[in-house]
């Protein structure tokens, strides 16, 4: 069993501030972290590797310094890491990103399962996983809250959808996107950290993947961000002050307003 986990380096959006005068994001000094959802994808991969044997390879596409999230994944338990990086990949949207990652999975050759986190916290698109599946022409199970089993060339998983749980079975190879409900990610281990510091991580560029610049990066991206604005923050909300009794009476009025009228 070889499981590839596609991860992303993201800015810690909790640390992003807005320049109040210009209305732009201040990203300077904002730490770059492993996308939190990806920790769950990694944990799911580790669990099945530990149970079934095999290896977990962690992949990311990004600038050279995105390598740090790969080392973090190795510290948690990934066996191998692979950086997909090239100037030609810069500015990619989800189409071009998934196209490039799928080419890397194809080049790896013997991958049985690709796992991604549900979404990345910077873009929040949740599109890369299914797009990788489309590029590979593999089946997909998205929004997985629980993987029940992997056996006989199939994966059985629970999709958490509106109003309930769909129990879905898919043949392998397949792409799965993981929700936070699926597991509790392990912490990095000391041995993992020591391994991560020393590991040589290969970098594959556009020539390694045999792609055309027209299908990667900004040139290969059908969508583009044209404007960025800050959401309206002003509120003309009404503030209530007073004794707890007074406040409770007003709140009860608000909550029961429709019932009573």
């Amino acid at each position, binding site marked *: 069993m070889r499981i590839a986990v596609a991860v992303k380096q993201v800015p810690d959006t909790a640390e992003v501030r807005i320049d109040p005068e210009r209305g732009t994001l201040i990203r300077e000094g904002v730490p770059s972290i492993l996308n939190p959802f990806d920790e769950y994808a990694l944990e799911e991969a580790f669990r099945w590797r530990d149970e079934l044997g095999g290896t977990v390879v962690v992949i990311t596409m990004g600038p050279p310094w995105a390598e740090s999230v790969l080392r973090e994944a190795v510290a948690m338990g990934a066996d191998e890491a692979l950086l997909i990086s090239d100037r030609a990949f810069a500015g990619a949207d989800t189409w071009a990103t998934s196209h490039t990652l799928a080419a890397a999975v194809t080049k790896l050759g013997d991958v049985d399962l690709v796992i991604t986190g549900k979404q990345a916290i910077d873009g929040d698109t949740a599109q890369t996983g299914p797009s990788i599946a489309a590029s590979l022409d593999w089946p997909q199970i998205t929004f997985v809250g629980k993987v029940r089993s992997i056996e006989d060339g199939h994966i059985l998983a629970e999709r958490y959808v509106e109003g309930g749980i769909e129990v879905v079975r898919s043949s392998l190879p397949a792409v799965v996107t993981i929700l936070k409900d699926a597991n509790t990610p*392990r*912490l*990095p*281990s*000391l*041995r*993992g*950290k*020591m391994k991560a*510091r020393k590991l040589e991580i290969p970098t594959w560029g556009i020539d390694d993947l045999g792609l055309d610049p027209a299908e990667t990066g900004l040139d290969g991206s059908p969508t583009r961000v044209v404007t960025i604005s800050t959401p309206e923050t002003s509120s003309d909300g009404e503030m209530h002050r007073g004794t707890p009794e007074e406040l409770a009476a007003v709140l009860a009025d608000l909550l029961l307003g429709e019932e009573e009228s």
Partner: protein
Amino acid sequence: MDYYLSDELTDIRDICREIAEKYIVPARAELDEENRFPREIMKVMADSDILGIYIPEEFGGTAEAFGGGAMALSVATEEFSRACGGVAVSYAANALGAMPILISASDEQKTRYLPDLASGRKLAAFALTESEAGSDAGGVKTKAIKDGDHYILNGTKQWITNGGEAQVYTVIALTDPSRGARGLSAFIVEEGTPGFSYGKKEDKMGIRASATRELIFEDCRIPAENLISGEGRGFIVAMKTLNRSRPGVASQAVGIAQGALDEAAKYASQRRQFGQRIDSFQAIQFMLADMATQIEAARALTYSVARMIDAGAKKYEKVSAMAKVFASDVAMKVTTDAVQILGGYGYMKEYPVEKMMRDAKITQIYEGTNQIQRAVIASALIKETAAGGN
């Protein structure tokens, strides 16, 4: 202060801090309230390879990566203590239990026990104290009488940290009652050995997440090969163990104090009285400044001793006692001041500082009371003076 920790020691600190933040802080109030041993957290520590940091690679640990293990143990213990003194003691007592094997056991014994302790498959505890043998190890009454290729143990050990939770116990018992302290020997006793049972579980003032229990030996037969280092060597094994572990107690104290300072500084920056943040008052500022200074001094001394041990020093009894005394007195002072800064809130269980104050107290008492430590320091000083040395 930057202690220029190596990359490997930084790894330990980062991992332990993450364990502390993600697992210990959310659980500490409940563990304290319920007097409950943190089994799940010990499992997380084991999975993160933190239990083997002072054990050599050939026995399943990673000590070489940290240039020994004393400094590694100090860094880990401090981080855990910062979150919860009780959980940290469970961790440190495991190392204490393993220490006699690590320091004095035969290779065969090390091979048999250390890998399981490094991986966390088993936990360890050190059993010296008895009702009549506290500061005076010579008062040990538990007997180990040779019977063919076995020893038969009889007696009761008291206040054994990790008692009832550990699977491997290093026990100090009398093999020759006529020789007093020189008649003591060290043994490895495994859980489940017939005649070995657990007695009373203590209800403590602080470090309540740690298990403190009686060990009862009633005609408990253990194989003679479980004797560590030979008959009559028990007192030396115990003293070496305690000398090695004292920087660990100092680290507990530093960690507890740091946790209390963190809470006090945070509270002081948020609490407003008379229309301003209370950390704008000089009375509070000076308290915080003193707390921070004392902690830094305690940490510097503790790290120095740990680094000395890792560097291969043979004699560190005096400085190890100094670190323990100084850091534990600092912990008591700082946690008390932290409660003071939080005022009425500090006295309530809703905030963690009252627990830190309770946890701090034990560091002045156990593994040799601070009075005994001072006696050790003074006696070393007197000897040095007599020898005309430094």
